[in-house]
């Protein structure tokens, strides 16, 4: 099937949640900020930004041909101002719901794509209010600002290390 053969940037930022449900929209909100940073030249243009309401099986295909994937989500259990942790594939309970967890998605990726996983991390931002029609709370918005700084710096570091890597390869082959 040809649908999986599209050009990808090396980094995928996947923010998920419903923007009309208060802090549930933290993931998409952070992506908007980072895209704005890229447009303003404050973040390197090395990533694709993908938003969705929930993670689902087809997102495994979006992870193909990436070197780094960061899931960004509101969390009821993350520490303030955010948690950033490496993910490994896991058969967890989320298989039994319409929505999947990032770790479960990695297990699907391994099975469907049959290729080694890219580096995958979860950025969990604490959320407090999830009712329909509400806005992001003030406390969560503070976390959001710090998470934005973190992701921007992460992208810059990643871009620099990729540049060094490429220069090394060029020197070796030259």
């Amino acid at each position, binding site marked *: 099937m040809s649908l999986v053969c599209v050009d990808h940037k090396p980094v995928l930022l996947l923010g998920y949640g419903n923007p009309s449900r208060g802090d549930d929209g933290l993931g998409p909100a952070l992506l908007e900020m980072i895209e704005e940073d890229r447009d303003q030249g404050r973040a390197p243009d090395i990533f694709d930004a993908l938003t969705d309401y929930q993670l689902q099986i087809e997102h495994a295909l979006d992870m193909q041909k990436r070197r780094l994937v960061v899931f960004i989500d509101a969390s009821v259990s993350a520490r303030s101002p955010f948690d950033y942790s490496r993910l490994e594939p896991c058969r967890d309970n989320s298989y039994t719901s319409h929505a999947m967890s990032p770790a479960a998605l990695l297990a699907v990726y391994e099975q469907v794509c049959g290729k080694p996983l890219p580096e995958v991390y979860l950025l969990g931002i604490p959320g407090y209010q999830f009712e329909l*029609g509400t806005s992001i709370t003030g406390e969560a918005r503070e976390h959001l600002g710090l998470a934005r700084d973190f992701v921007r710096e992460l992208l810059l570091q990643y871009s620099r290390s990729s540049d060094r890597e490429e220069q090394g390869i060029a020197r070796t082959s030259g």
Partner: protein
Amino acid sequence: MTKSGNTEIDALETAQQPDKLKRVVIEPLTRVEGHGKVTLLLDDDNHVKQARLHIVEFRGFEKFIQGRPYWELPVIVQRLCGICPVSHHLAAAKATDQLIGVKSLTPTAEKVRRLMHLGQVLQSHALHFFHLSSPDLLFGYDDAVAHRNIVGVLADYPQVATQGVMLRKFGQEVIRITSGKRVHGTGAIPGGVNKSLSSEERDYLLADIDQVIEWGEAAVALTKRLFMQDLDHNRSFALIDTNMLSLGREDGAMDLYHGGLRLKDATGKIVIDNLDYLGYGEHIHEQVKSWSYMKFPFVTGLGPEHGSYRVGPLARVNNCDFIDTPLAEAARLEFRALAENGLVQSTLAYHWARMVELLYCAEGIRDLLHDPDLMGSELRLRGEMQHTGIGVLEAPRGTLFHHYEIDDDGLVTRANLIVSTTNNNSAMNQSIRRVALDQLDGRELTEPLLNNIEVAIRAYDPCLSCATHALGKMPLEVQLVDESGAMIDRLFRNSQGVVGVC
């Protein structure tokens, strides 16, 4: 009806002396969108005296919409539901067409919308069957929880599971191309659409469509085989006799995007046909019951006792006279042959009907992609403003009603949404009562046994649509409580998938 009729199960709606009974709660339901729970009341010998499905549905959605300008509706209603945003997008767009006085769209606009809708139904059906239901159907209801899931299917049936992922992906690509984005798209606008297809986009989808159709055929064959290999059980499991409601084309063909309402009674007789859905309010009322947030719709001419109905794939495949794509039509004929009177009432037949529709969507997408109107430039029409707009379509889970009133400033003053899952409320309750009587009555409850209840509910693919999915919010917990309210047993499955008793 092969069992003892609906009377026996209707008696389980309300127990005579509930305070003297044990209560079992399944909360929340798994593999069902959003939050719901089932409560069972049992006597000392574990005989079921009451069974109810409670759902927290679109609570507050109408209020969320009130006061918004009408032109925002197709966009904001997508946020009501993380699972079927495109259905809400299109139903609202149809309603706003009327608000701006447009009775029929340009051919390009209508076909782009139809393409988007077929893509949405295809991806939704693929997700439901391959991800949510195939583990039960392939492994059995009593298979270990740790294995009875999509990864278990990937391990044991890799070809089947991968096809499910790819079908889902294809449907998402149809949505992305017709609406601009996979989610939060703005493809449909009042009076039309904001883009048509380029030849490159058309060719991109055409490159895979034959493969998609082939997989659709395989999916129909698989659901048929699974149903037929345990025919007696599958026929009778959660079996109820109901009316069937759906939209359909004037000539009787299946049509998921537009048409008139048709109601068949439980014998297959057409009771209502080609009803203009603008008059739905006279024919469909909603009953309120004190124990549920979700209303119980019924057809007014039949009354609340006999007027409830089923919607969704089972109703649509049962109701239509034909499907205008050849492979799906052949599949429909085989399906309908299951019942002597042509009206298949088996709840588990939803899965088979769903795959017949998936095949129809795949063929329909192919046919539309060959239609040059898709690449036309006349995208939008305008008319004279109206105060009322009603949009109805066949969402993946069934008939979806959007009804809006606006004031002279174009702001919404009233909104009424009857969603597919609400339309199936009575039927889902009846189905779990059937299961409670047939499978659970007088037995000691176990997780596999309770899964029978969930299997019945999942056949309807209910969308409880909270779309709030924050980490750590989807455990399963079953409590057994004695008549004084004290918990005497508890079975749980936490967010890491650990099952335990405490």
